[in-house]
């Protein structure tokens, strides 16, 4: 009599059933199509809100969208963004804009706060390089990246719109 009270035949039957179940699973998998994607050759479709590499973009008029307001610099948790403002006549510009991508934690907060939708994320994450300095992105590199890769869905305006409290609640709060 075995310890679990099933007896020899009960245990044998249970073992046989378990063996059959396990081997059925692997056999089913054998005839299924592999899920592997040949990554560098074939790229899987990425989700719309992929949080990839950061980039700066140009606005509709073809001008730099960044106004150097430094909001992203203030909000950045690991403090990887450094911006200097350049005062202009009609609007301000960013004199310098550096982003230390090697320390970035891809939290998307800079995208959320950007009042002019200037900083966005890209649908790519190929960061591997042999030199860390290549991940210290300046303004030109960031602009170049923005034109090079597909942009992710999120922009500052869209994210803020999404998180706006509902209208009714707002009216109630006002009263």
């Amino acid at each position, binding site marked *: 009599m075995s310890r679990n009270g099933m007896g020899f035949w009960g245990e044998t039957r249970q073992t046989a059933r378990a063996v059959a179940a396990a081997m059925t699973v692997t056999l089913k*998998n*054998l005839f299924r*199509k*592999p*899920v592997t994607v*040949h990554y560098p050759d074939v790229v899987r479709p990425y989700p719309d809100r992929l949080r990839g590499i950061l980039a700066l973009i140009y606005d509709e008029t073809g001008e730099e969208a960044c106004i150097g307001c430094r909001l992203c610099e203030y909000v950045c948790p690991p403090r990887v963004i450094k911006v200097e403002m350049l005062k202009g006549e009609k609007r301000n510009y960013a004199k310098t804009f550096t982003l230390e991508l090697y320390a970035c934690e891809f939290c998307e907060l800079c995208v959320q706060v950007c009042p002019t939708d200037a900083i966005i994320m890209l649908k790519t994450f190929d960061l591997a390089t042999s030199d860390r300095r290549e991940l210290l992105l300046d303004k030109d590199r960031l602009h170049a990246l923005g034109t090079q890769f597909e942009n992710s869905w999120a922009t500052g305006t869209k994210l803020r719109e999404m998180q706006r409290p509902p209208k009714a609640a707002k009216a109630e709060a006002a009263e």
Partner: protein
Amino acid sequence: MRDVIAAFILLNAVVLIVTYLTYVERKFAARMQSRIGPYRVGRPHGWLQPIADAIKLLIKEDIIPALADRPVYNLAPIVFLIPSLLIFATIPFAPGLGLADLNIGILFFLAVSSLEIVGLFMGGWGSNNKYALLSAMRGVNQIISYEVPFVLTALIPVVLAGSLQLSAIVEAQRGLWFVAYPIIGQLAFIAFVIATIASENRVPFDILEAESELVAGFRVEYSGMKFALIQLAEYTHMFGVSCLGALLFLGGWLGPGSAHPVVGAAWFLLKALFIFLLVTWVRWSFVRIRVDQILGLSWKVLLPATLILLMATGFWVALRSGHVA
């Protein structure tokens, strides 16, 4: 001289087949896990991968641990490999296509294939490494335990065929493969597969390698070509036992058009591949079981079961031939 040339050709063919068996196993395992396996080295489907692996291992640095028992350590892979290759001496690939069709072929096979354990223990002992030694002890323990039921299951076809000669055993299956014999055949085949898996230290009986606890078992200290030899020996042994299974239960070279030696050899290799894939299938379906469970299965279940089966087979054969009134 003719024999030497034949042996040379046979050894090279076996090594080549075994090299590609690793590829087959990797592809097969990958498909069971919804992967594609080796793909990059050689188009299509990475067919050059085994060659690339061999070249990589050849040019790797050969490290000998400072405290290793050098003669034993260096000799172990060779002692491990030679019995695995020797077992092919007696295997008939097709009628008349084999090195030496001994009239005690199966005894030779069983005796020589158990010698593998000496190399295994030498490797574990010579490495002077706790894990390696522990693994070698477990290996000896397990292989000796499973050698008994393995031999007893191998004897069932012998009793059915009435001969120890492998080619005669195959010829006796001309009417009906031994695996198709009612009840006796299937039970014996299942017992044979279980004993094969266990004596080849494959999952679920691989406490000897036990990736998570013993790193890689008795070969943990080996690198470069010595590691390659050990790996080659394991797969060669596996292939040899698959061949034995094909001869004993699946009718060897018998099949449509098997009168021609090439077709017969193709059937034989196909059947050996089937057993190999069966063992691989089991390997990727289960988790490792405990030492006491492994030994319990051997001594408490498999040994009595195969003994009873052997007795039943003998009784049945005697009944059929009319020796029992």
